[in-house]
C-alpha cells in the first residue's frame, strides 16, 4: 500500500472501507439475482474496482457532482450511500432511483450530486463538463468527477471534454478506471498509448497514473486534483489501473482472458489490501472490521429485500416523467 500524503481521520478510512464492502456485496447479490432470473437487462458489475468509487466520493460533498457509466452501481452507491434505491432500480421497481424507468445503466441521484449513469460509452463526459461549468458560473468551489473507463478514452467526447474543460479552466477531475478492457477488446487493440494519463499533456493539464486497487494511491492523486479544481486552476486526469473480476456483463463468455490473469488480479483485492492496512496500522481491530462486514451484509440484504418487496411501476402511468408537463405534449 502507498503511504498517504496526509492524515485521514479514522472515520474517513472506515467509511471508505464500509462503502467498498457494501459495493462488493451489492454486486455479488446482484450477480446472484441475475443468475436466479430475478433481474433483467445488462448488468455490469464493478467487483475489483471498488476502491476508486469509495475513495473519490469520500472526499466529495453532496453538491460536488459525478457522472457515471454503464458500470455504475459502485459510483452510484458511493455517491448516494443509498443501497435501497439502487437495488430497487436494478429490479425496475417504483421505489428505485428512477422509478424503474432507467434500470442498472441509468442510476442517478440529482439530490446527492450523481448526474447519472450513462449507457453511451463516453456520453457522460460532456454532461460532466456542463455540471462543472454551472459550478464555475455560480462561483462555488465545487467540483465534478466524471468516471469512465479505458474504452471511453477513445471516444471523441473524451477529447472534446478534456479540451473544453481545460480551455475554460473548469473544476473537472477526469477519473479513468482503466480495467484493461472494453468488453473483449484489450487496450492494446484499441488504445494507442499504454498509459491513458499521458493524454493529459495534450490538454495542458496534470495527469496521474495511480494504482486503482490502492486507496491511498488514489487519494494522494485525487487530493492534488481536488485542490487544483477547488482553487479554480482547472481540470486534471487521473488514470486508476484496476481490473474487473467478473465478465463485462453478467452473461460474458470471457473468451479474451485467462483464469490465471483474473486470479492474479484477485490477489490484489483492494478491500483485502485496505483491511490489512487498517489492521497493521492499528486503525481498527479485527472485530471492528468484522462488525462492519456484517453490517454491510445486513444492509445489502435489506436493500435486496426492499427491492423484492417494492411495487412495480404502474403501466397506466408509463408516460410519467417524459415531459415536465407529464405525457407527450400533443
Amino acid at each position, binding site marked *: 500500500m502507498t503511504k498517504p500524503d496526509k492524515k485521514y481521520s479514522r472515520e474517513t478510512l472506515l467509511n471508505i472501507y464500509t462503502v467498498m464492502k457494501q459495493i462488493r456485496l451489492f454486486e455479488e447479490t446482484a450477480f446472484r439475482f441475475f443468475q436466479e432470473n430475478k433481474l433483467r437487462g445488462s448488468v455490469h458489475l464493478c467487483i475489483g474496482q471498488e476502491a476508486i468509487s469509495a475513495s473519490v466520493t469520500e472526499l466529495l460533498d453532496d453538491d460536488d457532482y459525478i457522472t457515471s457509466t454503464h458500470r455504475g452501481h459502485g459510483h452510484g452507491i458511493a455517491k448516494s450511500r443509498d443501497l435501497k434505491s439502487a437495488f430497487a432500480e436494478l429490479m425496475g421497481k417504483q421505489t428505485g432511483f428512477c422509478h424503474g424507468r432507467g434500470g442498472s445503466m441509468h442510476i442517478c441521484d440529482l439530490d446527492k450530486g450523481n448526474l447519472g449513469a450513462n449507457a453511451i460509452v463516453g*456520453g457522460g463526459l460532456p454532461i460532466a*463538463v456542463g*455540471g462543472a461549468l454551472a459550478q464555475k458560473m455560480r462561483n462555488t468551489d465545487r467540483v465534478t468527477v466524471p468516471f469512465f473507463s479505458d474504452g471511453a478514452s477513445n471516444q471523441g*467526447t473524451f477529447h472534446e471534454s478534456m479540451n*473544453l474543460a481545460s*480551455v475554460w479552466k473548469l473544476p473537472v477531475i477526469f477519473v479513468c478506471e482503466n480495467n484493461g478492457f472494453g468488453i473483449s477488446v484489450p487496450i492494446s487493440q484499441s488504445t494507442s498509448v499504454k498509459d491513458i494519463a499521458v493524454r493529459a499533456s495534450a490538454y495542458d493539464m496534470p495527469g496521474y497514473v495511480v494504482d486503482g486497487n490502492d486507496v491511498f494511491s488514489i487519494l494522494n492523486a485525487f487530493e492534488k486534483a481536488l485542490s487544483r479544481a477547488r482553487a479554480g486552476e482547472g481540470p486534471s486526469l487521473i488514470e486508476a489501473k484496476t481490473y474487473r473480476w467478473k465478465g463485462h456483463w453478467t452473461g460474458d463468455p470471457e473468451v479474451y482472458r485467462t483464469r490465471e490473469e483474473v486470479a492474479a488480479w484477485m490477489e490484489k483485492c483492494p478491500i483485502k489490501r485496505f483491511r490489512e492496512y487498517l489492521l497493521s496500522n492499528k486503525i481498527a481491530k479485527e472485530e471492528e472490521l468484522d462488525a462492519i462486514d456484517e453490517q454491510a451484509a445486513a444492509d445489502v440484504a435489506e436493500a435486496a429485500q426492499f427491492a423484492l418487496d417494492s411495487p412495480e411501476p404502474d403501466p397506466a402511468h408509463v408516460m410519467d416523467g417524459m415531459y415536465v408537463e407529464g405525457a407527450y405534449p400533443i
Partner: protein
Amino acid sequence: MSIKTYAVAIRDVLAQEMRRDQNVFLMGEDIAEQGGIFGCTRDLLQEFGDKRVRNTPISENTFVGAGVGAASVGMRPVVELMYMDFLYLAMDQILNQAAKMRYMFGGKVKVPLVVRGQQGIGRGNAGQHSQSVESLLMHIPGLKVVCPSTPADAAGLLRTAIRDDNPVVFIEHKALYATKGEVPDDPEFSVPFGKSNVVREGKDVTIVGNYLYLGKALEAADLLEKEGISAEVIDPRTLVPLDTDTIVESVRKTGRLVTVHEAHRTMGFGTEIAAQVTEKAFKYLDAPPARVGAKMCTLPFNLGLENAVVPQVADIVEAAKSVLYRM
C-alpha cells in the same frame, strides 16, 4: 411594436431573457466577438461578458452536452449550432441524452436546454449546409421542436422556448434572417407552443407550410385566388407539440389539404400532418392530402439545380388544383 428583422428579433429576446434570469447563458461557435455568423448574438458579449456569452471550440457533441449537463443542474443554456446540419455531430447528446434524461431518471430532473441555429437553402452552401432537420427530430420523444416563420413568431416562440423546462430545438431559417416584421416590445410577449397559426383564411383548400414556404404558400394563394380558388394558409409553428386540431378544423371546412415544406418530401413533417388529418377528418376529405416537399436529392450547389430540388410556388398551385381536381 417595432419593425425588426428576424435576426434582431431573436437577438433582442436573448438579451431580454438574459437580463431577466441570471441562469440564461449562451454557448456556441463565434457567438462572442463575432456576434454569431448571422448576427443573432451581436453585442451580447459587450452587455453580458464572456462568462455568459461563450465562444466554444468546434466540438458540437461536447458543447451541446455541456448544455445538457448545465441544464440538468438548473442553468438555462441556449446553445447555438451554426448550421443545423451540425446537429448530426451532436445527435447523441440531443437524442440519447437531452431527450431521454428526464424520463430515464424517473422524472427527477429537468433539462431546460435550448439548442438553436439555422437551416435551409438560400446561400448556395450545398449539401452539408442546406438541410432541413425538423422532421427527423419529431420521431424521438423528449424534445420540443420549434419552427418560426416570422420575426414576431421568432421572438415569441424563443421566449417560450427559453422558459420551457424541457429541451427545445429551435430552428431558424437562414434565408429569413433579413426579413422584417412587427414585433411587440413587451418583454413578456410570447407565443405559446402547440398553436398553429391561420395566416390566411379561405374555404376551398387548406395549405400548411412554414419558413420560406409560408411566404410561398401565400403567393400560391394569391395566384389561386385569381383562378377563383380560395386557399386557407396555416403555419404549424411548432412541430412538437403539433397542433393538428386547427388544421383538421380547416380541412373540415375546405375538404382539401396541401402540405408544403423545404424538407425532403419522404418522411417530411407534411407526411405526419397528412396522416393525422386523414385519420381525424377522413370523411371530410374530398381528395387525398397532397404533400409537396423537396425531391429526395441532396441539396446541390448550383442554383438552377437547387431550384429543381426544392418546391416552387407553381408546385403548390398545382398541388392545390390537383386536390380540387382542377388540372
